[in-house]
């Protein structure tokens, strides 16, 4: 053991490293945690639950980011007060965030230095870089401490985040959905780091809603549902069936519906020819892509390879530097967002609250905003609100969903409900082309399946669908055709039954190309 590591706790096996008892947390009228009890067991302890079960709130309380209304926290049996993240770090509790909190313009070493508890006024760069290299060697990873974080890929940034937390003196590690940002073929490498940390003796809290990961990594699993801890099991006693029952209560298991599609044959609704963009973000290079009516085309790729930009180009939010955009047989290269939406394109974005909806407005207003030409009267002098209301109810009932309160502000809805609202809003416009970016990302199993079923249904009813997704299982299950984006270009165009995750992974990492 070298001096680089602050050293994992030499925990006696009978001691509980961290425990929370009777935690209550309210956000306004919402009871986020209702007398939650949690005892961290040695090894990897998985915290499992659907969206909104209270997992994130619980660990935010353990890390001092959120303060509990009631309840106590115990560190190795002694009661402690954790009011701020600084308190938590002083006590040796480290949290690796879902969205990294690194500063892109600084180097790896500088980012780590900012987090060190004993940072001297005069920066000793070589010393910090030395400690990083030492730790990397120990973990079996490769990170150059002198490069700027902004130039690193997402998996590399995640490693920096882990290094930072470890060198910051953490003895208990909390990972908040660490794999949600990773492409499929990178998760194995991540699991490797994870196991090494466990073997070093770090107690680890691992939040996830993916059952596969529970069995791949967990030693213990605690299931949460609606703000309370339902049960804690050692992994030997956990089965998939049992965990799903605990997560959802009365075993209302989602059925995967994937009716076979009409399979192309229709007229093309979208054709991109030689589309190249400049502008900020990933540049698209010479994209040729077409989607026909009744066809569901998937776009696979590692996050950041042009997915968002591809969606923006079709929506008209990004401009074409070169190439042609043809919608429904008409040259739409110079159409505005409004023309494109009114022409028949529905768009389901990756970040509903930030990018597609106005959070301070009611759902009804947001619905009207998406189809204003339809609802405005007298050239814009007034809006036909009764028609909006009727349309609102209809949008949800057609999809077999219970409509939410149309006067609720968008900001008051949970992520899953917002996603459902966006989908209902867009599908009710009867789009001839639907573009969906990771529509099921972050949703629990049940909501995700509803979303997938709705997309398949729209396809079966004759719409063209472009599904841009990180989830290879989702793509191969739903799509008639899968194209792969790599560094802003399309590197493959394959049928899902003629390929496998391994081959797609190679396309996605640029190791192979068929197009």
């Amino acid at each position, binding site marked *: 053991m070298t001096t680089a590591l602050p050293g994992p706790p030499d925990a006696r096996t009978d001691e509980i490293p961290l425990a929370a008892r009777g935690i209550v947390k309210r956000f306004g009228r919402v009871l986020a945690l209702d007398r939650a009890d949690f005892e961290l067991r040695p090894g990897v302890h998985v915290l499992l639950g659907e969206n909104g079960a209270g997992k994130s709130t619980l660990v935010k309380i353990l890390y001092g980011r959120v303060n509990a209304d009631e309840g106590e926290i115990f560190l190795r049996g002694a009661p402690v007060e954790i009011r701020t993240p600084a308190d938590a770090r002083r006590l040796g509790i480290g949290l690796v965030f879902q969205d990294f909190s690194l500063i892109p313009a600084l180097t790896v070493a500088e980012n780590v230095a900012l987090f060190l508890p004993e940072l001297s006024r005069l920066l000793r760069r070589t010393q910090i870089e030395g400690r990083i290299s030492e730790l990397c060697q120990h973990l079996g990873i490769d990170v150059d401490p002198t490069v700027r974080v902004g130039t690193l890929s997402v998996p590399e940034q995640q490693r920096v985040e882990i290094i930072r937390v470890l060198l910051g003196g953490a003895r208990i590690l909390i990972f908040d959905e660490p794999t949600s940002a990773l492409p499929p073929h990178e998760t194995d490498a991540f699991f490797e780091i994870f196991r090494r940390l466990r073997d070093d003796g770090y107690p680890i809290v691992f939040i996830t809603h993916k059952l596969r990961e529970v069995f791949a990594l967990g030693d213990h699993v605690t299931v949460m549902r609606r703000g309370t801890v339902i049960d804690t099991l050692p992994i030997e006693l956990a089965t998939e069936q049992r965990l799903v029952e605990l997560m959802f209560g009365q075993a209302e298991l989602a059925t995967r519906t994937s009716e076979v599609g009409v399979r192309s044959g229709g007229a093309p609704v979208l054709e991109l020819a030689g589309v190249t963009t400049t502008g900020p973000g990933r540049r698209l290079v010479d994209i040729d892509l077409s989607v026909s009516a009744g066809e569901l085309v998937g776009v696979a790729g590692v996050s950041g390879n042009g997915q968002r930009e591809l969606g923006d180009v079709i929506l008209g939010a990004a401009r074409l530097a070169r190439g042609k955009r043809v919608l429904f047989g008409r040259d739409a290269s110079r159409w505005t967002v409004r023309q494109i939406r009114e022409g028949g394109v529905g768009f389901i974005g990756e970040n509903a*609250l930030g990018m597609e909806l*106005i959070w301070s407005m009611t759902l009804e207003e947001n619905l009207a905003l998406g189809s204003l030409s339809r*609802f405005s009267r007298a050239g814009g002098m007034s809006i036909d609100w009764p028609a909006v209301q009727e349309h609102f109810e209809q949008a949800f009932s057609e999809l077999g969903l219970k409509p939410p309160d149309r006067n609720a502000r968008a900001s008051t809805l949970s992520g899953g409900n917002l996603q459902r609202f966006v989908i209902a809003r867009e599908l009710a416009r009867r789009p001839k082309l639907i573009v969906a970016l990771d529509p099921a990302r972050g949703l629990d199993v049940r909501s995700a399946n509803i979303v997938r079923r709705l997309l398949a249904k729209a396809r079966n009813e004759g719409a063209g669908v472009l599904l841009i997704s990180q989830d290879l299982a989702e793509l191969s299950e739903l799509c008639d055709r899968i194209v792969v984006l790599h560094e802003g270009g399309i590197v493959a165009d394959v049928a899902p039954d003629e390929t496998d995750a391994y081959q797609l992974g190679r396309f996605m990492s640029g190791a192979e190309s068929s197009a």
Partner: protein
Amino acid sequence: MTELALTLRERPRLSAVARRLVWVLVGFAVYCALILLYGKNPLAALHDTFTNTLGSTYGFEQVVIKMIPLVLTAMAVAVPARIGLVNVGGEGQLFLGGLCATGAAITFTSLPAWVLLPLMSLFAIIGGGALAAVAGWLRARGWLSEVFSTVLFNYIAILAVSVLVFGPWRDPTSSNYPQTRLFVPAAQIPHIGSSQVDITVFVAIAVVIAFDLVLRRTRWGLEMRAIGANPQAAARNGVPVRRYIVACMFVGGALAGLAGMDQVAGLQLRLNTGISSGFGYLGFLISWLSGHNPRLIVPMSFLLALLAAGGDVLQITQSLPYALVNVMSAVLLIIVLFGRSAGVRSVS
């Protein structure tokens, strides 16, 4: 996660009305402290202010006369502010509006009033509006923030007026004073009955009501509120954001331009460099004090008009400098803007 972050932001705070009352009281306290510092009795000053403004018909009319440009310049700030733009150019837009109205008044002297006055209004609207629209266009292209361009355009517009009244438009009969000839009667805005208040007051009232209705009832209002809350999301919903930026700046500038026309054709009856006693800047203060809400702009304009008219009175009765009113409004503006422009509240 987003849900959580949003809930956390909802801290209990003073209601909007209570907060504004506090601001107004602080403003009055600052004003009294300044008078005290100047060695005068603030109570006597306040007494003089009220008896000479609200206490007489003449005084009240003076307040209303000052309210007209204040409401219009405040609306000039409020309209663009609703989509997140900061128009600091009300003063310049007022000057250019006055300049263009004057251009019409001294060119088409033979036209009857019912043609000439609407024509002058059109010139004022185009003058003030165009100046602001250029700033909006620069912003929409992503080339220059409207905050900088509108401030800089103020100098251009005010100096343009100087150039004209010192040069080609100067009245040769008015010895050395730089101003245009007195407008022909057809170019003078009629007054209400025998009062000193001209009919622009109805325009100001109509503008306030119209803007309130537009915001609450119309498609444009919904789109403006969407841009104000999240321009990116609005654009993705198909709202033509760039067009709104130019249009809202134009409307704002046009309203300030009308205020300029009121000053030249309703009050001074000629153009000179003294057509505004800082109305553009006071309008900025009023709009921010009112949260850009047209319903609050009227009472806030009334308060500031009262202080401005009072400032005129106090120069005579207490020999207090008018600058005290300006100092007070500057202090008040700092209080109102406190914490807003420091980036603390920027959308995460």
